[in-house]
């Protein structure tokens, strides 16, 4: 059974079992939207270079059962970090593996299924309000058939002492797995949170994960957000993250894509207030026939906001990288400063890069620049190092590390920096 057919039967099954409340209606509607839109094809401008055929024609099971094989979930690099852990295995919440060390009981860290019942007011106020479903097929699909996910609420003025790590394990040891996590993070006025979303695969079978995260950031709040994708050469990943910010908020976002057959990230920021400050950085190291597709969009809807975007890629083998960055400056967003850069290093003759840095500007008093570069490692610094007796391999590693440094120095969790350094060491 292909995924497209599987979706039909799964939803029918869900519809017969579900309680017929407003939440069901919302999901029913989303399912109809998805039916209407269908999976995106390469005829869709946003999906021109990324073909979903392997996913839609593939056979996947929507299962939350981990495989019978011994998969050491503790082996994750994040297990050792002093942090709150929310663990999901194949989309279902795993209470035993989760750890809460936050002393402040006013802070809510739980899963979506529980939050819908226990914190209904908060949930209903924010859930599904930021990530568009009407035009984005995969968001509609996620809403219709979501499994579970993280629910976090940081009340006004509070600060989460240690980071929160949302660990998603996709375990396809026994069969092809299809998972749809959904996260809702609410950061109230003046609150502060450091958040890591991690995606790790276990098992040799193909897997497909379709994530939607909504993050609401109220006035004067600050968010550190890291997304780390370490999957296998058999795993497909589509991701939609929507930040919705009020005035005087600041966000530091870093996306690290280290592995995965096909990874498509949609990262959206909507600045609904003045004086917002957003930094978004990304790095990917891709090899084999893998594809990494980063789509970002920053909506400057109000005046006096700042955004700085840097995405870097190192490509080996026959890998493909796609970058599409859009800065949208709305008519009222005067005094906007927006910067965007995409840099790629090709290490192989067979790798390809498709990049499209876009500006759409409707206000006149703005400063916006974007730039893109694609090339090999510079010969001159290489020669400099070689002439000082450093072997070619070493020299190359040094230069690539320097290239990655601009991103890694934005990461404030030391373990994450180490992970990145090891990954570069291993791959290059």
């Amino acid at each position, binding site marked *: 059974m292909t995924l497209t057919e599987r979706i039909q039967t799964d939803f029918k099954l869900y519809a017969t079992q579900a309680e017929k409340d407003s939440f069901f209606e919302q999901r029913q509607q989303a399912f109809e939207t998805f039916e209407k839109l269908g999976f995106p094809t390469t005829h869709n401008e946003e999906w021109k270079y990324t073909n979903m055929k392997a996913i839609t024609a593939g056979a996947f099971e929507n299962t939350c059962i981990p495989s019978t094989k011994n998969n050491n979930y503790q082996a994750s690099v994040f297990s050792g970090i002093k942090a709150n852990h929310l663990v999901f295995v194949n989309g279902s919440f795993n209470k035993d593996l989760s750890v809460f060390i936050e002393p402040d009981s006013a802070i809510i860290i739980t899963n979506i299924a529980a939050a819908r019942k226990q914190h209904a007011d908060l949930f209903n106020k924010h859930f599904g309000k930021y990530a568009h479903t009407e035009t984005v097929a995969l968001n509609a699909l996620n809403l219709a058939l979501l499994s579970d996910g993280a629910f976090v609420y940081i009340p006004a003025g509070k600060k989460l002492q240690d980071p929160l790590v949302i660990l998603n394990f996709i375990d396809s040891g026994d069969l092809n797995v299809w998972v749809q996590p959904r996260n809702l993070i609410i950061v109230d006025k003046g609150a502060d949170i450091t958040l890591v979303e991690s995606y790790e695969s276990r098992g040799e079978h193909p897997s497909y994960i379709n994530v939607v995260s909504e993050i609401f950031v109220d006035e004067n709040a600050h968010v550190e957000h890291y997304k780390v994708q370490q999957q296998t050469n058999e795993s497909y990943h589509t991701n939609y993250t929507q930040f919705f910010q009020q005035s005087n908020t600041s966000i530091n976002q870093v996306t690290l894509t280290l592995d995965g057959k096909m990874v498509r990230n949609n990262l959206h920021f909507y600045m609904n207030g003045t004086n917002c400050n957003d930094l978004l950085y990304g790095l990917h190291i891709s090899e084999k026939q893998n594809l990494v597709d980063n789509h970002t969009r920053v909506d400057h809807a109000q005046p006096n906001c700042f955004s700085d975007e840097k995405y870097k890629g190192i490509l080996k083998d026959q890998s493909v990288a796609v970058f599409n960055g859009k800065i949208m400056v709305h008519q009222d967003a005067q005094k906007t400063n927006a910067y965007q850069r995409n840099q790629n290093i*090709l290490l192989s003759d067979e790798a*390809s890069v498709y990049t*499209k*840095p*876009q*500006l*759409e*500007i409707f206000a006149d008093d703005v400063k916006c620049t974007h730039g893109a570069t*694609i*090339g090999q490692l510079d010969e001159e610094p290489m020669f400099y190092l070689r002439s000082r007796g450093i072997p070619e391999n070493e020299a190359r590693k040094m230069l690539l590390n320097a290239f990655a440094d601009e991103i890694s120095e934005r990461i404030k969790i030391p373990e994450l920096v180490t992970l990145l350094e090891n990954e570069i060491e291993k791959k290059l």
Partner: protein
Amino acid sequence: MSELEVGIIGQVVNQEYKYGFSTNIEMEMAPKGLSEDIVRFISAKKNEPKWMLEWRLKAYRYWLTLKEPTWQNFTYPKINYQDIYFYAAPKEKIKLDNLDQVDPELLKTFEKLGISLLEQKRLTGVAVDAVFDSVSIATTFKDQLKEKGVIFCSISEALQEYPELVKKYIGSVVPQTDNYFAALNSAVFSDGSFVYIPKGVRCPMELSTYFRINAENTGQFERTLIIADEGSYVSYLEGCTAPMRDENQLHAAVVELVAMEKAEIKYSTVQNWYPGDKEGKGGIYNFVTKRGSCEGAYSKISWTQVETGSAITWKYPSCILKGDHSIGEFFSVAVTNNHQVADTGTKMIHIGKNTKSRIVSKGISAGKSHNTYRGLVKINKKASGARNHTQCDSMLLGDRSGAHTFPYIEIGNKTAQVEHEASTSKIGEDQIFYCNQRGIGTEEAIGLIVNGFCREVLNQLPMEFAVEAQKLLAVSLEGSVG
């Protein structure tokens, strides 16, 4: 926004189009609408060989299967192709040998446009081919060019006199099946210019074509074909104007350039079709397909364009860099005002080894207009050592205008070196202050700054056009940019 600026932009908006007159001249027209019969009619009218008719019909049949594109960054009302005259020509029976036989009304029109053919002939040494509505009416300097072996004539004439050359190259760069408007043009094109520069010849003068839409409800579909044989050089200019009319008129031209080994073609455009009135009523839809192919090694094609007119400008002059070491260049200034729209840019397709391309695009949007740069740089797998540098800058005058950038960069070879940079800004208050302080008025200062902003592109234009382009810029943005 200061009151002064409001005044300035007000003046910009009120600027009138000065080429808006129409000429009363007897026209011969085919019936309205488009059908196979019209295609046959046009072909018969031009006494074309049979293969040409077949070629047109193939294009027409293919066009019928196509849908109008929708990916562009603007919308326009649906064009009713049955309401357009696809063929309109001044009633002219005899073939012209010299300018004295041209209808004096027509000559007057061209004089009003500032391109007195007679004067041009005597003074400037630029060979001109003038296309009025659908038909080429006069070509100057033909004999002098002939001595060098250069062929410069209308494409209908070329079909009569050099059919084998036309047959070999027409559609070789922009095939009939290329896109919606190219297919339409291939079916119904009425005239245009044809240039052939033989091996090793450096064309002794600038070649120039002037296009004029006059008749109501007509579309202009001209086709230009330029072939530069091995080691030759040619610089070609085109200019365009149209009368003021309330309806939108369609202009769907095709330009094909072919550069052989070590040949160089420089193609410059100063486009000033009627842009519509300040409410956005009327104006020309300028939907043009322009493409050059660097066939041989070390060849070079350079596009320069100054786009100030048209309600909608939608074109991407492109270069296919097939030959090793070939070079493609694109220099563009697009100025939009009132409700004008420009969606323009280029495509650089690198196929040969060590190919280079350079893109410089400057967009200025005022009033409620929108200016889009859309460009593709594609480096094929085998195109090692390719190099591209792209720079696109936008300047915004007025807070209801928009500037957009959509660069596509597709790289398939690791030795490629591709850089893209873009910026958007308004004129800095500190820059104006600097000038004011030194006794330069605000208007003049804006003029200076805009001219400086565009200079890189204007410098690429041949002398005669550079002057005109500078004047045009001044007229389009008078008040705000001096």
